């Protein structure tokens, strides 16, 4: 076996002591880290509820006012961006052949709002190619779905 000379041993010892000292210095002056976790929970979404009525019966080529009575239980404002027919008004008068459609009402509901009435002027339409089966529809036959999203914009004026 090869012997380590005194000189080599001294070099090795100095190097090793240096490494050890560096470790100790790092501990004494160095950085250290701590972590924590926190939970952020989001609110439930409340359903916007309401009723819809028209200023007059729908007929082909009509553009009638839509009266929306809406409540918003959420803590944030909601902009209603779309009204669509829900289901078929009757067996013969379907969503497809009634050709009823709505303009974007662009209504902003205030946060935590009790029912308020909004009017979307001329927002309900029936095309001239609507089925004859749709004659005599009443407002009770027409169910709609409102689509909206949170917004920071100012709430709309209500009636």
């Amino acid at each position, binding site marked *: 076996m090869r012997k380590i000379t005194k000189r080599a041993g001294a070099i090795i010892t100095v190097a090793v002591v240096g490494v050890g000292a560096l470790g100790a210095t790092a501990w004494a002056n160095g950085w250290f880290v701590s972590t*924590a976790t926190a939970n952020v929970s989001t609110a439930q979404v409340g359903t916007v509820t309401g009723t819809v009525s028209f200023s007059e019966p729908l007929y082909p080529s009509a553009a009638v006012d839509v009266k929306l009575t809406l409540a918003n239980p959420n803590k*944030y404002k909601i902009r209603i961006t779309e009204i669509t027919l829900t289901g078929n008004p009757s067996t013969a008068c379907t969503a497809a052949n009634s050709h009823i459609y709505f303009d974007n009402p662009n209504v902003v509901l205030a946060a935590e709002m009790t029912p308020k009435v909004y009017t979307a002027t001329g927002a309900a339409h029936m095309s001239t190619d609507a089925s004859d089966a749709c004659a005599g529809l009443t407002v009770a036959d027409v169910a709609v779905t409102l689509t909206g999203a949170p917004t920071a914009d100012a709430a709309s004026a209500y009636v």
Partner: protein
Amino acid sequence: MGRWWTTAAALTVLVGAVLTSARDTPAEALTGNTRPSYDFVLSAESISGLYPGVTKNLRITAQNPTGSRIVLTQIRAEIIATSRRRCSGTSDNLTISRFTGRLPQLLDAHRTKTIGTLPVSMPLDASGNCPATTFTIKITGTAQR
């Protein structure tokens, strides 16, 4: 002589290694919402009821259990989990703003104090899959002696 040198060297390395590893070794197991390091402890209050367009503040507290003062130099935060698979833990759904506390910040020996807040907000166009979701946020603090 040779044996003495070898023993001294081995001891020195051992002491250095122990001290170096002790620096980053957590002294305690996970407790509550905090995971203490050997030298200081961070904690944060959870918040609830966040909704689109709103910012709330996560209050961060630091505790220095040691006998010497330390300097907090960095606070970072990241979303590490959400409770709903369809609500991703990205900035599209939850944003964490820059730490509001002063950095660097001194923390005296044996002191606990609120060091600042991390504002968290939910964008107005956050996913519709995110109501009633819990986001888990990991907060990492760095300090120097």
